[in-house]
């Protein structure tokens, strides 16, 4: 057993460009801000299935936000139009406003 262990030699082979590869990976990670690193790592290892689910989530979120903003914007636009229409109606029954607009 001892003889066998003494005769056993480990000959690790460092692959070509190992150091370059290590520095390359370090540089890649340093380029990414630390806050985003988890997110980036997650996206780097994203499978197409998970990616498309994430895109679908983004689309849903976008839809919800778009509808919310649209409802607020249309309320404001409708309010402004109602004001204009009210002025139009009042002008049609108030002769003084008609004189003023001539």
């Amino acid at each position, binding site marked *: 057993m001892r003889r066998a262990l003494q005769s056993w030699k480990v000959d690790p082979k460092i692959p070509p460009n190992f150091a370059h590869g290590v520095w390359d990976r370090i540089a890649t990670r340093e380029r990414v801000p630390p806050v985003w690193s988890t997110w980036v790592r997650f*996206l780097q290892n*994203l499978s197409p299935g998970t990616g498309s689910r994430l895109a679908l989530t983004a689309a849903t979120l976008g839809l919800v936000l*778009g*509808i919310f903003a*649209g409802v607020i914007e249309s309320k404001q636009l409708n*309010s402004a139009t109602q*004001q204009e*229409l009210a002025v139009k109606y009042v002008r049609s029954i108030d002769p*003084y406003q008609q004189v003023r607009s*001539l």
Partner: protein
Amino acid sequence: MSAPSILTSRSGLSNFRRWLLVIILVGLVAAVGAFLVCTYLATQPMRDISAAPDAGLLWLRHEFKLTDAQFAQIKSLHEKYSGRCDAMCQEIMRVNARLDNLISADHEVTPELSSAMEQAALVQANCRTAMLAHIYEVAANMEPTQGARYVRMMKGMIIQPGLSITTTVTGPSFS
């Protein structure tokens, strides 16, 4: 072993960029699309009313939730009143022009100027009376609560003729 891991890192970065771009684009397109469609659809009824020739009356119908019968009745009243309103408008312009000439010509309050001012005040009183009578008639053809709201909305014009409705009306009816 390290060579494939470098490849994984590089392809991982491009994968990251691709997915990030896809997610941002999809989210943006969905948001902008939903915003435009929602705004277009939600403002359609008001835009239709605004484009109509009798937009003011259609606004009245929408604002005070008039039924078809109420609207027809109020429309008929409005058409009848419109002729009188045009005549009042002409009368106001005539007395105002006379007053304008006299104020420019005289340098003191002459009996003629006094009379012109009295006439202008009389025309104004007649116009206010006619307007108020029309407002009451219109309100009488609405639901009682809507009619009361209509009178509240219009009374500013009676108290101060020529006043813009935006300065007389505030509150829930326009929100």
